[in-house]
Structures are given as C-alpha cells and as structure tokens.
C-alpha cells in the first residue's frame, strides 16, 4: 500500500510526535492530515461476502470521523483464525463460531450482525422463458444429493403446475472453494432434509455427492450459463446484479417466496432472538410468513472485554455508527438486506451494556 520510502518519509515527518506505534499512525496522519495522537486505525479481517458494503462503510466512516479501518477480505475461516490469534482488532464471518472455537477465545467474543445475505438457486432451462421455477427444501436436497436426476421428475413437476419441463439430465454445480454461501445453503438443506444432514451435513466446504465445482460465484454462474440443464446456487446480490434467473422457494408457512431484500429482511425479523441472545442464530428455514428460507446474518466478531481499551472504544463507536439508518441505507443501495429494526435495537442494547 505504502512504499518503504513513503513510510520512511511519513515517519520522519512525525519524528517529533514520536513514531512509536509506527505504521498505523503514520498512515492515518499521512492521509487525513490530523495529528497522529488523536486517531488510531483499526484492522479487521474475514468474510468476503460483505466486503463491498464494509469497504463502503469504512470509507464513509473515515471521512466522517477520521478513523481508518483496514479490512482484509480473506474469508470467514481466516477471519476467525486471525481473531482467535489476536492479530486483528475484529474479525468478520458468514458462519458463526462454534462452541469449540468460542472456548478457544475463552468466550471473549460477541457476534455483531451487520447485514443479511441470501443464497438463490439458479438454473439454465431456456425452454422456460421468464417463468420462475418453484422448489421446496426436500426437492432441492434430493436434487443436490443426486436422487432426482431428471428435470421432468414428477416431484419437480408437482411443484410447478403448468410448466413444461424438459426430459433432460440435471447437472448440479456447486462451489469448489470454501465459502459462506455454501455454509448457508447446506445449513438450509440440513434443516429440511434428514438425509442431507446424515449424509453431507453443513459446512463451508462439504463432500458433494454429485456435481461439478465452480470457483466463486462467477465460476458457478459460468458453468450454469454454459450448460443446459444445469442447476447451482449463488449469492442473491450476485444473481441480481448479473440478472440470473432464480427459483422461488417454499418456506415453512408453505408459501413460495421470491428472494429479494424484503423477503430476506423478513427472515431476520422472524428470528428467535431473546434479550440474552448471543446473535449466533441461523435464520435459514425461518418461520415468518413472508420469509425467504435461505437467508443468513453476517457478523463482525468483536471482543467483549478488550484488553486494548482504546481499540475497544473505537470498535464500539463504529458499530453504533453502522446501526444508524443512513449506514443501513447504504447497505440496501448495494443490494444487501438491511437489519430489521428489532434486531438493530437489540444490538444497540447489547453494545451499550
């Protein structure tokens, strides 16, 4: 980011103020022109999925307050690892830490939900035209298990009355790289299909019974678009911005729901969050009437008790800022579903306490 010479120059110019904590201060001062003593920089690492909105938030936040936040989108697994090792001020993840991981940091972690994401099922059936396919969880699970192999299978046909389905093979495409998207999708399938739970389970990468692996959302999309009869799953935002066809999915209340920002936020509104919640809730297969069932929070990982109290205060101030309506509106602009108001209030209460 900064060449050694620039760093040296910045350091030299700050020599009178003390160059003790080096780089960070130098960077902050060099870009904002504020005295080095007042502003610190925070570092974070983790999930790639919310990276666009985090980048936008951190940029807006730096302009408003002068506090720079450096974020490395290295993936949720890496975020959890770096957070555990204490090399970053905060982590970020698409899948919550499990109990074992929480024990590794002696419980000193708070999951702060930031925005919502969703996973959509996309497919390549040119004969369908603009009609959106409809699925339910059990059928999706059996397709991805390789137990339903033809598009005109009677179970798919029963969900899509009036739609002529071709007598062609279903070609399954999944993510080959470990990803939060896979976690959300398999978490949903494990909830709706006992067979899936037994045979595959849910994780950021799993042993897929059938199908081809594509790298990243773009890899899956390419393979689906190039292969007639293919089915795959991608992030909602990616599907919207690339105008992919996606299926409506039946939720717990037996309604077929189109994935969009509203139906994803609805899934969070229906989440069972008690006042003592640690926010590690899965909202796939949510109970709300108009909830899209393959939705999830994405979280920041922050320390409950931060030994570095200055950094702790900085993070707290950022989280408070992020929950304001203006910041959440930025999320909607980038097609992230904003947090519903009850969740925001709950997080605010928790941060204050």
């Amino acid at each position, binding site marked *: 980011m900064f060449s050694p010479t620039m760093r040296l120059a910045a350091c030299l110019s700050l020599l009178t103020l003390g160059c003790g904590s080096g780089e960070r201060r130098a960077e902050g001062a060099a870009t904002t022109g504020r005295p080095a003593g007042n502003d610190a920089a925070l570092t974070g690492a983790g999930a790639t999925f919310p990276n666009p909105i985090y980048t936008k938030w951190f940029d807006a936040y730096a302009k408003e307050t002068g506090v720079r936040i450096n974020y490395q989108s290295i*993936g*949720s*697994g890496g975020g959890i690892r770096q957070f555990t090792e204490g090399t970053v001020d905060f982590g970020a993840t698409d899948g919550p830490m499990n109990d074992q991981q929480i024990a590794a940091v002696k419980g000193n972690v708070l999951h702060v939900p930031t925005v919502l994401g969703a996973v959509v099922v996309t497919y390549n059936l040119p004969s369908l035209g603009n009609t959106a396919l409809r699925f339910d969880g059990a059928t999706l699970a059996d397709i991805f298990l390789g137990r339903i192999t033809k598009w005109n299978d009677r179970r798919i046909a029963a969900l899509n009355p009036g739609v002529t389905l071709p007598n062609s093979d279903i070609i399954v495409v999944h993510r080959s790289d*470990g990803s939060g998207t896979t976690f959300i999708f398999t978490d949903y399938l494990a909830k709706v299909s006992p067979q899936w739970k037994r045979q595959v*389970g849910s994780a*950021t*990468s799993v042993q897929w019974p059938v199908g*081809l*692996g594509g*790298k990243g959302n773009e890899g899956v999309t390419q393979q689906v678009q190039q292969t007639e009869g293919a089915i795959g799953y991608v992030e909602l935002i990616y599907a919207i911005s690339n105008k992919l066809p996606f299926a409506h999915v039946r939720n717990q209340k037996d309604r077929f729901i189109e994935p969009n920002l509203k139906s994803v936020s609805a899934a969070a509104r229906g989440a069972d969050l008690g006042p003592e919640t640690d926010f590690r809730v899965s909202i796939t297969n949510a109970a709300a009437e108009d909830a899209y069932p393959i939705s999830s929070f994405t979280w920041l990982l922050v320390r409950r008790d931060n030994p570095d109290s200055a950094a702790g205060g900085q993070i707290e101030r950022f989280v408070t800022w992020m929950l304001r309506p203006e910041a959440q509106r930025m999320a909607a602009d980038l097609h992230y579903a904003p947090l519903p108001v009850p969740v925001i209030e709950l997080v605010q209460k928790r941060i204050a306490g």
Partner: protein
Amino acid sequence: MTALSEPDAPTQPIPVASASLERASRGDQIFRGVLTLGAVTIPVLLGFLVFELWMGSRLAIDKFGLGFITESTWDPVAEVFGAFPLIFGTLLSSVVALAIAVPLSLGVAIYLVEFAPKSIRQPVAFLIGLLAAIPSVVYGLWGIFVLIPILRASVFPFLRDSLGFLPLFQGPIYGPSMLAAGIILAIMIMPYVMSVSREVLLAVPNTQREAALALGATRWEAVITTVVPYARSGIAGAVILGLGRALGETMAVTMLIGNRHEIAASLFAPGYTMAAAIANEFSEAVGDMHLSALAYVAFLLFVLTVLVNAGARLLIWRVARGSGAGSAAL
C-alpha cells in the same frame, strides 16, 4: 583458450599502493559475504518451509498416516480426508499437458532454429515468450469463456466420435474436465519448453549439421539424426521445467478442472489437483483437522515435486552420458 587469456597473476604483481590493495580485498570480502548470505538464505528458507508444513500437518499425519495417500474420501464435515484423487489429478493433468505441449513446442523450436526465414525467427520467439507473461487468472478466465465452449461444442464430441473406443474419451461431456485443464496447462508451459529447447538447439555446433549434410542427409534427416540427439539432455531439461510449472499451477487449473474429488478413467470427467484444493479450501477451512489435512496435502505436493524432479534429473543424467551440448542449460 584459457592458457592464452588468463594472466599469470601471482608472478606478475601489479604495481599499486598497498592501501588501495587492502581496500580492494576488503571490498571483495564484503562482496563475498553478501553473496554467501544470499546463497545460504535459500536453503534455510526451504528448510523452514518444510518444517512449517510438517508441523502444520502433524495432526493429520497422526490421524491418517500414510493411508492419507491412498484414501479417496474428502469430507470436511466428518473430518475424514484422503489425497489420492488429488495426487492422481495433479499427475494426470501434468502428463496431459506435457503430451500436448512437448511435441508442439519442440516442433516450433526446431522450425525456428533450422527452417524459418531469418526475418521471422525473432518475432515468433518473442511472441511465444509473451505467453509466459500472461497472469494465470487471465488464462483461467479465457479458458472458461472461450476455450470450454469450443471444447464442448466441437472438440470433445469429435474426440468421442473418433477415439471413443478408448476409455479416455468416453462418458458425458460437461466442459470443465481433466482434458480442459491439461490443454490450458499445455498452453501455459509451452513458452518455457519452447524457449529453452530453442536455446539448446541454437547451441548445437554447426559442424554437426554440416557433417550430416555432407554425408548426404536431407535437412530433415540432419535434424532428426544429429541435431536433436546432440541436444537431447537440454531438451529433457526444458521438459522438466515445463513439468515443474504444470505440477504447481493453481488458478487456471482450478477454474477449468471441475474440482471433483474423484478418479475417473475418462479425460472428459472433472477432477481435482493438490494445488487447486489448497487454494480453494484454505481460506475458509475452520476445523483444525481440515487445516492440517490441507497442510499435509501441501507437504505431499512438495515431496511429489522433489521426487519428480529427482527422477527426471536421473533420467537426463543417464541420457546425457556421452552427449555434450545443452547440459549447460540445466
């Protein structure tokens, strides 16, 4: 030639002030120190790397032992790991790449050195060299958007129709496959194999060619009977360089190979390589055993590379006995 050009330094002292002599020798010492440091750094780094990989994979080594190499399951949820499909995929994709790239690049090199008009030798060599400068992610994207559609629409069906009696060319055609990865690898290693072979062929003394021609050989016969055998050890070196690249290539391969932990006889079927699996899963691996299994894969990839290189060098050494040119290229 050495006897003529080398001055007899000790017997003819150069008349210079002793101070400047001292300074010169101190300069030499510093220079020597710096170079030694550089030379020592690399083995130390390598040792450190191996140590780190070993430590990182301890958990998986303790649990799976050598069975890891022959086991085919890769299940991060149940934490059961085996690298056999990855090792198989790494070797097979590299072999496919060599099978395509070596005849092609050798042909180009021979043409450029022996047959091409002078005016196009440099431009063609330069253009092929440019292929080496393209980032592998660009190869991958080009593969997804351009190569795979062509392969699926015409090349694969043609191969299945004409060579379908071989198990290699049977089965359903998806696009992303072992063969697609092998083809992209072949394109990527071509510039290396071509450039080195060309240098080696250029180093073959003209007297060899003249002798063959004088005996009545045609140009073609001179090349096949004299020039290529003379340069064979250097050409083998070029192939090893290409093989090394192919074994370790990650990004373009993972974009085209289909990423399936499976062993299939057909080249149309998707596969997986060791480097691709590490790149794909490392960033999101959360379980300790998963991470450790990936480190174990990295360790095995290292061992595999060493073995392949050692084997190839042994081969060259045996081939090269008695032949001169080109061993210098190694």
